[in-house]
Each structure stands twice: as C-alpha cells, then as structure tokens.
C-alpha cells in the first residue's frame, strides 16, 4: 500500500463525494471486534484474558490471576514455563517498541506466588449424571476434557499407557524446563476431582473399547512417533543414533544416563532444543544442532534457540545429512552437504556447495513427529485420510464416528500444549452436547462485558501512563550449577522488582477506546492529542483501501482493523481509528469535552462445556 502523496492539508485535492452506499459503522457489540483488538488474547488458542491477569499481578492478586488463567488455559504453572507463546509475537507492545510484554513469564509469576487454590477450583458433584466418557492418553488435551466434564457430573476414565500422567509434558519436556512438582500439582487438581486413571493401560483396540458402550470416547494420544532419517549407515550405526522424543523419554525415565561427548542433533525445532540441552547435561561437551536452512526458517522459538546457545551449543546452518560414517562398526562422524539457498520462481531452492564431515559419537534425530493409530481398526466407522490421519471436524473435534472425538496432536499432528488445551475445551463442549442430544453445531456463543473504566476526572481503573521500560530479561541459573543434574530449573522466575517493571509494559489493550458518535462535537481534540496518530475525522471513502491511505498516519498494517463510526452530528464525516499501534493511554478520552470517547474495559465471555466463563468485571452484570 502506498502512502498518500499529498499531505492532508492540501485542500484543493478533491474531497471524495459521499460514498454511494454509506458504510455500515463498525459493530462493536460483536464480541469479535474488541476481542481482536486484544492481540494477545486473539492470538491465544485458548483466548486467555492476558491484560486482566497482568493487572491482577500488578495488584499483587496472584491467586485471582492464577484462577483467571486457569479458567482458559488450565495449566498456568506449566504453560508459564513451556508455552509456545503465540501471544507474544502478536503483542501490540512489539509493534510499539520492538519487544512484546513477557506475557508467558508473568503467567509463571502468578503461578509461583499463588496461595493454595484447592478450595477455589471447581469440584465434581457427588451426584453423577450417568454419562461415561473414556479418554485415551493422560496428556494436556485429555486432561482438559476431564477438567471441563468432571464438574458437570460425568464419569471420566483415562487410559494411559505409562505409569504417570502428563503425556508429553512429562516425558518430552525436560525437567530443567518444567519441574515435576509443578506438573504434578496442576495435573493433580484435575485428577483429584475423581478421575479414574488406568495407568499402564494402553488401548490396543478401539473396537474393543467402543464395545464397552461409552457415551463418548476422546482420543488424546498425541503424536508419539518420531520421524526416522533413512540415509546410508543408518542401520549399521543404529546403536548411536536416537529418535529425539524417544530419547528424551528414556532420559526422563533414567533408562539412559549418558551420551557421548560429541553429539549432533538433526533438526531445529523445539524438540531439537530439548535434545541438545539434555545432551549437555548427560555428558555432551561438544553439541551441535544441524539445520538444513538458515536461521529465519527455524521452527524453534527464538527464546529456546537463545537458551541453547547460552549453553554453548553451536547451530550449524544450511547443512543436510548425507551419510553416517562408521569406523570399526561404530559411528564416528556424519557427512553433510553444505547447501546454498536461492529463490527461483518464488520458491526456495538449494544447491550443494560442497561436502563436509563432522565427527561425532552420537546423533539424535529431531526432524518431526508423526501420528500412528495402529490400534484403531479401519472398519469401525472412523475414517482416515490418505496420510493416515483421522478425519476430524475442525470446529467440533468429532471424527466420522459420532461417539469418537480427537484432540491435541492426535487430531492434526504436532502443535503445542496451548492448542491441545483449546482442543480439549472444544471437545468437551461437543461431548456435552452429544450426551445431551444437542446438535454439535449448536455451540454456545461468545459473550462480552463492556464497562467504563472511568473513576473520576482523568482517573481510570487502570494505569494508563505509558512505561518506556524495555523488556525484562529472565534470570538464568549459572551454567556451572545448571549442568549438575537434569532437574535443575534454568529459569529462575522474575523477582518482585522485575515483575513490577514488566507488568507496567502492558498496554491494557482490553481497555477499549469506545466511541459514541452522537456525542461528538468534532473539536479534533482527540486527533490532536493522540500520540500515535490513530484517529482521523474524514469524509467517508467508498472502500477501506482508500480510507486507510487517507488517515492521519496511513494504516498500512492490514492485519489490524480500522474502526469507522456512524456519521458525526455536525459535518456527517466519520471518526476513523486505526487500531494498529493504539497505546490505550486514554488521552483521547481525557481530552474529549463530551465523553464521546470512553475507556471501557472489555471482557470476553468464553463458553465452556455446560457454562460460560465467569466474568470478572465488577458491575458488569
């Protein structure tokens, strides 16, 4: 989109005629509009109310903050350490000063500082509703289903192949990132409602399970198979070549306690990061991660890459494995092709520059995971596609068998914990509808609260001043200490001072600039005072493209909405707001002589199985 050539004051440029069909004013009563303004919450698969929980932390109300988190994401302590954080790249603060608010780490602050919440979380009723639900696998998606259905009186049975609950959260995430005590406590909140967990009980036949007449079956068995790399030497060197997730599980169970000094990790996703850092703790001193492409294409989260590099792990870019090299029947090195990438017809292509050999004692393959359902018979009404993946409805999580639902990595392949949680919530709604004989498409709707935050003359119920602080850095355990054992947690959490600084960086995007066109006298005060030139009063343009180009500052970020008001009383122009970098500082509302602008706190009411989220705004209902 090109910027307008003439400055807005060139009054001889033709003023657009009123558009033939007047634009419908932006409908802010639709919860989706203001929800999208809260970038973090919109990006979060589980729609966690981030700004509100950060404000609760700022007020020292850790328990309330934890409970608000738990309602949507179920595992605040776990996710506060391990979440993939889709919220942070989305955070408006990132567009303002380059670094998002440390949302994830603040979540951990709430979890670490909470009081005992056992009396404050839902309990299962003594009286059951007579419905029986089987969940396969005790990972995050199944646990979420149990969390949502137990309070409604369901009898929930989980079949788990291992001896402990948690799924990948337990066996694939190393304990130096996620201490077992944190996991045990949060999983315990759910299981202690009376979930019947059958440990060491892998489901070997879906047909047999279905024959047990469950009212619903939920498959949350994850994507348990690590991909193999079939290149020359693979078989001969098998003793020193490990599949990443299996190796991590073995390390967790203590089946392996050592690895060679020189270790190569193939692949550069988050599993690779866990593998290389675990290697450093099991005897690896020269650990390298091999990537086919350059850094900007890496799948691993930037912060996990940073943490690995801090531990002295080298990332080798643009290298592709070619042959395992053996000497005396033992792995001694890996031959790699050095690649050069270039673009051709819009596609990334590579050519081999030369071949290099890196000596090594062990290789760990972390090039992806696959689903495998050998235990689901293909003639029982559960359809699979040509890739061997179950056919699952994106919205309802239902398979082609009316009683069978999928979620987590089992549904569409590897995602992350927070997506698994959201799948669990949606599956629970579907299972509840299914058991109540309600159509699965008849899903409870999102609701909203919108309450003025005005407390008096220029006084708001939130801290509206902008904090220019840069993002707080997480303190890490010293390198010498952290390699002492697998269970030494690396991230130390924020101190009280760091927390106090970081919470002020949040822009409170849920406190919305709510406009009443009928009150506006078009004095321009809001437009003049807006620090980021979000606002414009303009004749209407017939399309958004022209409108975006003719604002106080061109609205070039098309992923961000623009708000358009109803025609204003005096000139019939419209008020337009570019949501992109609004600081929610409230200056527009403070300068408005007629309170046409108000800073109104928005709260999304999220539906869960059998209920709607509680809603925390005082005076909202």
């Amino acid at each position, binding site marked *: 989109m090109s*910027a307008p050539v003439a400055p*807005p004051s060139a009054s001889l440029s033709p003023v657009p005629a009123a558009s033939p069909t007047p634009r419908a004013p932006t409908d802010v009563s639709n919860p989706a509009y203001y929800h999208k303004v809260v970038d973090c919450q919109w990006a979060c698969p589980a729609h966690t109310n981030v700004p509100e929980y950060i404000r609760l932390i700022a007020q020292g109300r850790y328990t309330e903050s934890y409970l608000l988190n738990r309602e949507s994401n179920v595992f605040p302590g776990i996710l506060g350490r391990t979440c993939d954080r889709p919220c942070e790249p989305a955070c408006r603060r990132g567009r303002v000063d380059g670094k998002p608010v440390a949302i994830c780490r603040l979540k951990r602050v709430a979890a670490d500082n909470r009081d005992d919440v056992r009396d404050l979380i839902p309990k299962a009723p003594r009286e059951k509703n007579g419905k029986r639900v089987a969940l396969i696998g005790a990972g995050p998606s199944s646990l979420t289903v149990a969390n949502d259905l137990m309070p409604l009186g369901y009898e929930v049975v989980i079949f788990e192949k291992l001896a402990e609950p948690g799924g990948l959260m337990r066996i694939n995430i190393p304990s130096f990132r996620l201490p077992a005590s944190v996991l045990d406590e949060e999983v315990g909140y759910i299981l202690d409602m009376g979930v019947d967990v059958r440990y060491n009980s892998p489901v070997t036949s879906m047909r047999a399970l279905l024959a047990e007449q469950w009212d619903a079956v939920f498959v949350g068995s994850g994507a348990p198979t690590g991909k193999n790399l079939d290149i020359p030497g693979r078989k001969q060197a098998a003793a020193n070549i490990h599949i990443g997730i299996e190796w991590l599980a073995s390390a967790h169970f203590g089946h392996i306690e050592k690895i060679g000094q020189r270790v190569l990790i193939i692949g550069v996703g988050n599993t690779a990061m866990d593998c290389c850092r675990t290697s450093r703790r099991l005897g690896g001193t020269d650990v390298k991660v091999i990537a086919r492409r350059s850094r900007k294409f890496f799948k691993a989260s930037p912060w996990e890459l940073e943490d690995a590099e801090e531990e002295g792990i080298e990332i080798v870019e643009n290298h592709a494995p070619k042959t395992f090299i053996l000497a005396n029947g033992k792995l001694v090195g890996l031959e790699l092709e050095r690649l050069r990438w270039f673009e051709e017809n819009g596609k990334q292509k590579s050519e081999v520059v030369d071949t290099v050999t890196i000596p090594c004692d062990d290789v760990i393959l972390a090039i992806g995971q696959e689903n495998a359902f050998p235990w689901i018979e293909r003639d029982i009404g559960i359809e699979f596609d040509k890739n061997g993946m179950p056919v699952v409805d994106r919205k309802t999580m239902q398979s082609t068998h009316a009683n069978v639902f999928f979620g987590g990595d089992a549904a569409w392949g590897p995602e992350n914990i927070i997506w698994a949680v959201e799948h669990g919530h949606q599956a629970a709604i579907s299972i509840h509808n299914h058991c109540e004989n309600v159509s699965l498409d008849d899903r409870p709707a999102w609701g909203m609260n919108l309450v003025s935050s005005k407390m008096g003359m220029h*006084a708001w119920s939130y801290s509206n001043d*902008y904090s*220019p602080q840069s993002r707080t850095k997480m303190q890490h355990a010293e390198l010498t200490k952290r390699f002492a054992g697998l269970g030494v947690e690396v991230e130390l959490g924020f101190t009280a001072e760091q927390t106090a600084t970081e919470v002020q960086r949040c822009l409170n995007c849920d406190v919305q600039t709510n406009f009443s066109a009928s009150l506006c006298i078009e004095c321009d005060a809001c437009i*003049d005072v807006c620090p*980021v030139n979000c606002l414009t009063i303009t004749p209407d343009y017939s399309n958004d493209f022209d409108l975006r180009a003719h604002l106080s500052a061109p609205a070039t970020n098309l992923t961000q909405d623009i708000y358009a008001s109803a025609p204003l009383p*005096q000139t019939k122009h419209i008020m337009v707001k570019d949501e992109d970098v609004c600081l929610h500082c409230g200056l527009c509302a403070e300068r408005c*002589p007629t309170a046409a602008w108000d800073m109104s706190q928005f709260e999304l009411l999220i539906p869960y199985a059998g209920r709607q989220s509680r809603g925390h705004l005082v005076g909202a209902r």
Partner: protein
Amino acid sequence: MTSITKPPVRHPSLPKNALGLTKREYEGAMSTLCAGCGHDSVTAALVQALWELDLPPHRAAKMSGIGCSSKTTAYFLRQSHGFNGVHGRMPSLATGANAANKDLAYIGISGDGDSLSIGLGQLCHAIRRNVNMLYVLENNGVYGLTKGQFSASADVGSKSKRGEANVQPPIDPVLLALSLGATFVARSFSGDKAQLVPILKAAMRHNGFALIDVISPCVSFNDHETSTKSYRYTRNHYHDIAPVDFVPLRREISAEIPDTSLVAVTMHDGSIVRFRKVDSEYDPRDRDAAYAYVRARQAKGEVVTGLLHIDENAADMHGVSGTVDTPLVELPYEELCPGSGALAELMEEYR
C-alpha cells in the same frame, strides 16, 4: 488538562519532512487547557503547518501575552525561542525582537482579549509597521480565564451561558486590519484544519504582518446553543470564500491544469498561494472589495473565512526603515554602536 503526558512513541508510518523530522518533533509541552478547547486544535494546525514548511524549530520565536490563547506557545515547538510577556504587549515584544533579529520566524499567538481589549493599540501599530510575523488571534468571544465574561469580539445578541445577551457591538479584527492597511488578512476556524493549515503556511511565508483571526470555540464558557462562537454555530454559518492551497517553492508544479477559477499569488520567497474562487466576484488582492464583501456577508449572518486579502508588494518594517540586510544581532558591536565620535558627527548634520 490530562493526567499523563503524551507517551514518547510514534506511529511507525508517520512521515518525515525534509529535515528528517516527524510532526512529533514540532510539539511542545502538554496542554493544560480545557478538554476540547479550540486553541489546542490551532496548536495542532501550527504543528502540522510548521512541519510541512520544514521550519527548523530553533529558527523560530514564539511570542505571546496573557490569556488562554497566550498559554499555547508552550504547546508547540519545544525547541525554539520564545517570550511570554505582559498582557496585550506581545506586538511590542515581537516588533523589538524582529528589529534585532529579522532572520527568525516570528509566531505571535494572542486572543480576543489580549488583542482587542487591553492590547488593541499594540495590534494596530504592529499592523501599521507591517512587522514580518505571523499573528494568530484565537477568537472565542469570551474571557475564559476569568470565567466567561463577554470579550470585545462577542457578537450583539450572542448569549452567555447564563442567558444574558451581549449588547455592545463587536470589534471585528478582520475589518480592523483591512482598514489599517494589513497586507495579509485571513479568517479561519479551529475545527477546519484543511483550511487553516494552508493559510498558516502562506502566512508564515508572507513578508509582512499576517493576521489570522481563528474562530476557536471555548468549550467551557461559549459552546452552548445560544452562542455565536460555538462549534455548531460556526459550522452552520461558515462560508469559505476562497479555499487556498499553498505551494512551497521547492515543489515543482508539473501539470498545471488551466483553471479559470484559480488565482495564483506569488509570495515573496517564490512560493505560490493558489485560490479557488468560490464567488467569481471575489479578488483577494483588492482590499476595498474584500472589505465590502466581508461586510455584506456579515450582514447576512455569515462567517466569511479564507485568505481574505493579500498584498505581496508592500515592504515590511525593515524595508520601510531601510535597515541593512544583515540582522542587527549579527552586526559587529563596532558597527552597531560606532561610538560617541560617530554620534557627534551625526548630530553635527542637524546643526
């Protein structure tokens, strides 16, 4: 008044001018005026105009007296010179400063009280001397700082907030300036930046005294139904007789569209002001016609706005006085004050 200052963050696509500055660099301190005050819009229009003109902030001097309007010099160009003086005496300050250093851009901000009551004589003589400056008269018809008494520009029949009608005839700064021989006379409205900004730019480039009477509603004391200086009244009686476009010297005019309704006036520095004549009778270069036109429209209850009169051929104060080209402030002391010998010689001439 606001509870916080403006955060030091800007929109990523905020354009920069030829000096590499964004509009934000032309701002000043936070306004402490009432929310919705027209004066804040005038300030914003000034910020926009000065930014568009690529004015180096340190080459400007902001002059003001007393009043809500006179506070506003604090709210733009935080890195320029300035003098906030005695009530109504800003024209003297500006005249003196301009006499000493004619190379600075002088921006005087005043109000209807400061200019038309206590400082009326000062204003008249600054016009008479054609001091090279921008003179913005933020006109709201009331004394806002003292709780809303009628000012000298209040219209007959306009009612105060308490319902009392004004009975004394107003002083119209535009008619006053035209009759005194002002070389640049305009009227605008704080609620119409599309008009105000180009007029401000042209005024900054005018070589002489440029008066802009800006209707700038007082939201606290004069924005009610029965006021003739409210946002609504002004919008309803607004008549833009000659929309202007300011074309700075550096911008090349490539495809000049032959348009008979356009009148172009070349400014002192070579930049051009173009008018679109809404009324074919109107010629902003004809002082008497302008005077008659404004009077006639006024009788019909219209608020005539636009660049009403311009005379680019008159000499400014320095031209009339025949001062040297070098600003006096830059002259070596020996030249500026040649000593008692030179004075004695001069005195000898008059014997």
